[in-house]
C-alpha cells in the first residue's frame, strides 16, 4: 500500500531519535554546532565565491550571528568611548544597538516597499552578517588607534566599509526590479557608512 500523503513511519522514529540526541548532547556540542553554523554562513555571505546557488543558503536565516556581531561592535565602541562619565558609554552602546536593528529593519522595509519579494528576516540576517567586517575594523582601531595617525586609521575603515557594502549590495540589488536598484542599494550604503563612521570617531 502506498503512502501518498503521509511520510513513511520510519521517518517519525528517525525524527524522535534526532530529538533525543539533541537533548542528550552536551552543552558544548550544541554551542559548537551553532558556532559552526554561524561561521559557515559568515563565509558564505562575505566571500562571494562561495555563493554558487544565488543566495539560497540564506533561506536558513538565523539571528544569532547578527546579534553576536551587534553586541560585540556595541561593546567594543562603548568600551573605547572616552568619557568622564559613564553616560557617554551607555549612549554609544544604545545608539549602535538601536542603529543596527532599526537600520536593518528600515533598509529591509525599503526593499519590500520598492517591490522586492524577500522574506523580512532573510534580509535582516544578511545585513547583520555583513556587519562583521565593521566589527574587525572597530577592534583594530580600538587596540591600535591611539598609535596611528588619522590617515592610516582611515584605510582599514574604508576597506571594511567597502567589503560590507559590496557583500550586501549584490543580494539587495537582486531583490528589486532593475530600474529601482539604486533606490534599494543607497540605504544599505548609508547604513554601513553610519556604522563605519562610528568606529572611526570613537
Amino acid at each position, binding site marked *: 500500500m502506498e503512502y501518498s500523503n503521509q511520510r513513511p513511519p520510519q521517518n517519525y522514529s528517525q525524527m524522535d531519535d534526532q530529538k533525543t540526541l539533541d537533548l542528550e548532547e552536551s552543552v558544548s556540542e550544541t554551542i559548537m554546532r551553532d558556532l559552526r553554523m554561524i561561521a559557515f554562513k559568515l563565509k558564505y555571505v562575505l566571500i562571494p565565491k562561495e555563493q554558487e546557488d544565488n543566495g539560497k543558503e540564506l533561506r536558513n536565516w538565523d539571528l544569532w550571528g547578527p546579534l553576536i556581531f551587534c553586541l560585540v561592535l556595541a561593546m567594543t565602541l562603548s568600551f573605547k568611548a572616552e568619557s568622564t562619565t559613564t553616560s*557617554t558609554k551607555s549612549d554609544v552602546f544604545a545608539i549602535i544597538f538601536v542603529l543596527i536593528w532599526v537600520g536593518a529593519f528600515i533598509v529591509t522595509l525599503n526593499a519590500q516597499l520598492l*517591490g522586492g519579494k524577500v522574506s523580512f528576516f532573510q534580509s535582516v540576517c544578511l545585513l547583520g552578517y555583513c556587519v562583521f567586517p565593521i566589527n574587525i575594523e572597530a577592534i583594530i582601531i580600538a587596540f591600535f588607534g591611539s598609535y596611528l595617525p588619522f590617515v592610516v586609521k582611515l584605510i582599514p575603515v574604508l576597506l571594511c566599509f567597502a567589503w560590507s557594502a559590496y557583500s550586501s549590495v549584490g543580494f539587495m540589488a537582486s531583490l528589486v526590479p532593475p*530600474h529601482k536598484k539604486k*533606490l534599494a542599494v543607497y540605504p544599505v550604503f548609508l547604513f554601513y557608512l553610519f556604522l563605519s563612521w562610528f568606529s572611526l570617531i570613537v
Partner: protein
Amino acid sequence: MQNFGSNDDLDEKGHVMTEQPKIKVKFEPKPKPSACPICTVEYYQKFFDIEQRDVYMRVRCSLLSWKPEFQQCVAKNPDLWGPLWISTTIIFILFAGGNLSRFLLEEDKKHFQYEYNYMYVAVFLVYAMAFVIPIILGVIMKYILKSELGVFDIVCMYGYSLSVYIFVLILCIIPYNEAQWFFLMSGLANSTIFLLVNLWDFIKKSKPALMIAIPIIVFNVALILCFKFYFFRLIYAVDD
C-alpha cells in the same frame, strides 16, 4: 448490480479510473480587509513606485527652486522614498558634520569629546520637519482649506525641499561664521522659495490660504536657526 464502469474506464494497469472533475477549483483565501489600512505595507507600496531617474528629476526640480515645475515632475505620483532617505542623509551629515566642525575649531584636539546628543536632536528635528509638520499642514490644507493636493503630496514636496540642505550642511563644516551663515541663508531661500512657488496656485486663492505661507516660512527659518545655533555653533574662547 454495481457498475464498476465500462472497459473504457480502465487505465493501462487495469485499475478502475474514477472520474476526475474537469474544472479545477483553486482555493484562494480572500484577502481579509485590514482593520487599519494605513498600517499595512501594501498601502505604502504605491508611494515607492518610482525609478531612480524620477528621484533624480525631482531633486533637480527642487534645486532649481524658482521654477514651479514640481507638480509636473511628480505627475500625480508622490513618493515617500525621497523624503525618507533625504532626511536620513541630513541626519547623518548633521551628526558627523556638526561634530567635525567643532573638532576643527577645537584647540585641544587630543581630548576632543564627541557629542552624541547631536544624534537624538538631529533625528527629532529632521523627522519633525520632514514628516510631522507637512502632515499637519497637509491635513489643514486638505480638510479645512479644501486644497486639491493630498497630504502625501505635501509630505513629498517638503521632503524634496530639504534636499538642498544636503549640500548646504556639508559646506557648513567649514568653520567660519560668515561662511556658515551665507550657506544656511541660501539654503533657506532655496527651500522656502521652492515651497511657496509650487504652492502658489493654492495660496493665491483666498486669504486663509495665504495664511499658510506664514507657518511655512516660520518653520523653515526655525530650522536653520536650530542648525546654526545647535549643530554648527561657534565656540568662543572664555576668558577666565
